[in-house]
């Protein structure tokens, strides 16, 4: 009896010691996980291997089906994507395009180290890998590199008072048969990232619902429906395809800082350096007064 009381007292003391710490920390996402509800490993689809955006798609445009002129490549003068933008955001986009046409709208990834951001990350060059597990799916991109984590373990998004905008956002998913359906929120927008190099941006209030599935043994499809109550007049659905590369294909390092011979000037101009680090460009903007003006 004495022994029991001692143990009980010790337990109470321990609980008291831990109580403040527990009260200060919210229940972690792991608390929501119920392993018995996870999809069995054997029922998950085979998305192994290396994938790249299906050939024939004009480079870089977020929605090539709406590129004007048709087949236009993002980053080239005069090319735009006909997104359902509100008048205010259409004007903002037009201003960005004018900078693109003048080569004064640098891609944020040119600075090396900035992630592509979601949903742009689903439409970039180089290799993709899709690592499917019951509790989460990782989308790994060679370019960048980027990692998108899609949680399918039953957790929800972080609560509103704990979430903050990031380049990759917060992705929560579930399986509908062999289709991974996930919702991404809390992404940065205009001023931090772009949708493509035509200068297309979103407000940072966007929500993206993505359906990822195989449409053929070696073809994956992502169907992204973007809702942005600030920048878009209606939900905008974009579909991209990824082709599985031959068995045995590999993905390699992509080190943006290894030999980056394209620095960006303070005015947003993309320079080209020779092997000694001297710029070869014949026309370079004068530095703005007051030093650097990062774009």
């Amino acid at each position, binding site marked *: 009896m004495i022994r029991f009381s001692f143990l009980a007292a010790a337990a109470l003391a321990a609980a008291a010691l831990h109580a403040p710490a527990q009260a200060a920390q919210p229940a972690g996402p792991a608390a929501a996980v119920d392993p018995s509800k996870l999809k069995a490993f054997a029922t998950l689809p085979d998305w192994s291997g*290396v994938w*790249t955006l299906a*050939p024939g798609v004009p*480079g*870089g445009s977020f929605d090539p089906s709406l590129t004007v002129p048709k087949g236009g*490549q*993002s*980053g*080239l*003068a005069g090319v735009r994507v006909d997104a359902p933008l509100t008048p205010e955001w259409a004007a903002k986009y037009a201003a960005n395009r004018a900078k*693109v*046409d*003048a*080569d004064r*709208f*640098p*891609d944020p*990834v*040119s600075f*090396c180290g900035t992630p592509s951001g979601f949903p742009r990350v689903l439409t*970039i*060059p*180089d*290799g993709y890998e899709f690592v499917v597990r019951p509790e989460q799916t990782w989308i790994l991109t*060679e*370019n960048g590199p980027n990692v998108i984590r899609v949680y399918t373990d039953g957790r929800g998004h972080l609560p509103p008072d704990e979430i903050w905008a990031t380049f990759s956002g917060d992705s929560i998913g579930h399986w509908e048969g062999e289709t991974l359906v996930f919702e991404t929120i809390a992404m940065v927008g205009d001023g931090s990232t772009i949708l493509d*190099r035509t200068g297309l941006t979103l407000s940072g209030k966007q929500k993206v619902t993505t359906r990822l599935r195989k449409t053929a043994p070696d073809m994956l499809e992502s169907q992204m429906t973007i809702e942005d109550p600030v920048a878009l007049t209606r939900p905008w659905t974009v579909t991209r395809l990824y082709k599985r*590369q031959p068995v045995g*294909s*590999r*993905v*390699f*390092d*992509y*080190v*943006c800082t*290894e*030999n*980056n*011979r*394209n620095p*960006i000037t303070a005015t947003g101009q*993309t320079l*080209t*350096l*020779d*092997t000694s680090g001297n710029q*070869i*460009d*014949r*026309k370079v903007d004068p530095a703005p007064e007051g030093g650097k003006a990062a774009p």
Partner: protein
Amino acid sequence: MNKKSLACSGLALAALAALAALVAFAAVPALAHHSFAMFDRDKPMTLEGVVKQFQWTNPHSWIQVNAPGPDGVMREWSIEGNSTGTLYRQGWKPTSFKAGDKVSMRIFPMKDGSAGGSFVGAKFADGHVLGRMD
């Protein structure tokens, strides 16, 4: 050469041609790292020169070529290509270009006339082609 090996050669040639077409198609530069605005895609040009250095690097590979420009003046040109992973999957190797290689280089030149451009294709002295020369 007997009939059978001729047939095999024909098949091999056909396969090579198909592969070359595939590589040529796949080699359209994506330039994953920065805007394409500096290049003039409407006025591709061909350089006849000698490789000085091949940089098998990221975020871009670079081929340094000594060649006369449109003005006839010999310069060192900086030709920008894709990242190593994509190039490797398209059939390139770190040794695809060697110093001293005589090449015809098809490029999208820089708009401002600088000695640089974006890689489109290269034809080597032995006739083999990387990318596309059209």
